[in-house]
């Protein structure tokens, strides 16, 4: 057990995976020592396991995903790093047309036990091409699994499960948590958290706040403020978007009868629309109010700090939306 931030927790998961399975290897831009990646996530690993297993690549994202896919087809468990999620734009063919579809196209002969790690999200003023959350692109692609880390311990456990999963898993690490995220106790060794299980980050009775990644923290902060008004919010960290734990989400909403989905990606055709629809389809008669969403606006991510802050969902916007949902209503129980 050690107190770690996100980057160190991810490093610990990679270290464990490289240690327990000789078929695991890493590839990506700048990942070898002495730097260990631009965010130092892979620091020390090439020194420990050798540069044949922690492989620097040229700036060639298609070649990275393709090499990982081919090696996975041949029985390896590659962990590819795409430095920043926006760079999916230059390798999506390899991921969406090949890695994602090969199991299906081959009638189950092929499987692609591949992990693609990437940093993502606004908040550190990287501008429009280094800040976007594009999880909806991936969720919309059958054959991919999509996981977004929030806490360090969850990141480690989920990443280990992703590496030993037999399908391509995209593992998203919120960039702001590299810089200022919390430290928490992270178990040593090969301790896995299964994919497809949401986590109730805070229990509550009046409204369910559903989020993932960085904005689990935003929702927890909002829940504290709401609590001062006597509104006890339940906060659900989905953790894994595909596969999705609908049971935990729907059970919570059935209890609270109000739901607010919070994500940073732009709202239009975002994952929040899917979650909202799922809840309405299953719980229409239980809901006191329609499901609402707090999301990024339908714009690219701006650079200027003031604009960027306005882009990203904040605890205040979540509180305001939650208060509105929790206002007195004819369907409210007395």
């Amino acid at each position: 057990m050690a107190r770690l931030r996100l980057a160190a927790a991810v490093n610990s998961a990679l270290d464990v995976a490289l240690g327990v399975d000789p078929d695991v290897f890493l590839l990506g831009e700048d990942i070898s020592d002495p730097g260990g990646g631009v965010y130092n996530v892979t620091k020390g690993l090439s020194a420990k396991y050798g540069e044949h297993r922690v492989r620097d690549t040229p700036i060639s994202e298609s070649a990275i995903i393709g090499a990982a896919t081919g090696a996975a087809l041949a029985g390896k468990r590659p962990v590819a790093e795409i430095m920043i999620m926006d760079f999916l734009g230059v390798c999506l063919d390899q991921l969406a047309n090949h890695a994602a579809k090969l199991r299906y196209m081959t009638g189950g002969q092929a499987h692609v036990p591949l992990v693609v790690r990437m940093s993502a999200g606004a908040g550190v003023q990287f501008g429009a091409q280094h800040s976007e959350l594009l999880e909806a692109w991936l969720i919309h692609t059958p054959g991919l699994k999509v996981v977004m880390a929030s806490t360090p311990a969850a990141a480690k456990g989920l990443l280990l499960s992703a590496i030993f999963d037999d399908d391509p898993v995209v593992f998203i690490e919120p960039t702001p948590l590299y810089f200022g995220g919390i430290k928490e106790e992270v178990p040593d060794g090969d301790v896995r958290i299964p994919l497809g299980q949401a986590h109730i980050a805070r229990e509550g009775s009046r409204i369910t706040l559903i989020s993932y990644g960085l904005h689990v923290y935003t929702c927890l902060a909002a829940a504290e403020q709401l609590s001062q008004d006597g509104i006890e919010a339940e906060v659900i960290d989905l953790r894994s978007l595909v596969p999705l734990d609908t049971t935990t989400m729907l059970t919570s909403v059935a209890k609270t009868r109000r739901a607010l989905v919070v994500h940073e990606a732009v709202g239009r055709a975002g994952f929040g629309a899917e979650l909202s629809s799922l809840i309405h389809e299953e719980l229409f008669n239980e809901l006191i109010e329609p499901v609402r969403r707090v999301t990024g606006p339908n714009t690219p991510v701006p650079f200027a700090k003031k604009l960027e802050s306005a882009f990203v969902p904040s605890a205040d916007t979540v509180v305001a939306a939650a208060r509105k949902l929790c206002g007195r209503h004819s369907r409210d129980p007395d």
Partner: protein
Amino acid sequence: MNPGRVAVDQMAEPGGEDLLKMYEIQATVVAADEQFRQRISSGEVSLVYYSPRGQEAISAALGAHLRPEDYLVTTYRGLHDQIAKGIPLPVLVAEYLGRTTGTCGGKGGPMHVTHAASGVMVTTGIVGGGLPIANGLALAAVLDDSPRVTVVCFGDGATNTGAFHEAVNLAAVWDLPVIFMCQNNQYGEHTAIARSMRVATVAERAAAYGIPAMRLDGNDAVAMWDGVGVAVNRARNGGGPTLIDALTYRFHGHILGEDLAYQPADERNAAIAADPVPAYRSRLIGQFGVNAIELAVIDRRVAAEVEEAFTLALAGPEPDISSLHTDVVAEVAL
């Protein structure tokens, strides 16, 4: 067409076994292609079909040199490569016809044939998409210290994709045991090569990445056998990748049944008049002293095998609707 064969100082010649094997592969491709075209034209079967007719000599050389455990990645124009690598005809034809008895249970179809047991790992419908994956298959052999080599086939059009350039560069940097086999049929879909690239040959593109290249007469099975042998030996013995620019021509355009107005008729007629398959047959008899009766026996056997493969394939059931949802991910459904 003057292929201007270069780069191999002293030409080796195939022995009798390889000569006959290459004949049998070409005869099989011709017979299977004829069956597909006839049955499509008559309306008996319906599929989008990219005839490899005219390019057989290239696949024959691959078939002679590759071992069963070697890997092959090919494209939607891949029937000849798939036959050469040894996919049993009944399951291959059945996949082209979308039957449950096909290599992929009918889920892949002619553009997505995989038969891992024969080493045909990926057939891609995305021009250039196979090259990055071939690197990964080759990388796995390096990590396993295995003598396995990977060949990836693609057309001249693919050499204008970013994936080609990223993949050849990475293979060079990592010294991967991969052979980039450009089946240069002079057209990328409907556009002639001279209108698609400013350099005179595909082969010279290799110089930009520091790997050896050969420009070969792709219609001459003996020359191809020699060149492929050099490249395979290089890859198998740690010498890294080779780009082969194999000049050839496709007799039936991009997709069977299309308007061929983009291709000068005299150019096409000249290529068909110089059909490499009967030319090879004459050469076997005239230059290599093969008994014509021996070839006739092969012709009869191959015709019977192809006929039987179609009979078996057509008798195979179409996939059950329930299989729509399987093989998306390792679990039944998400």
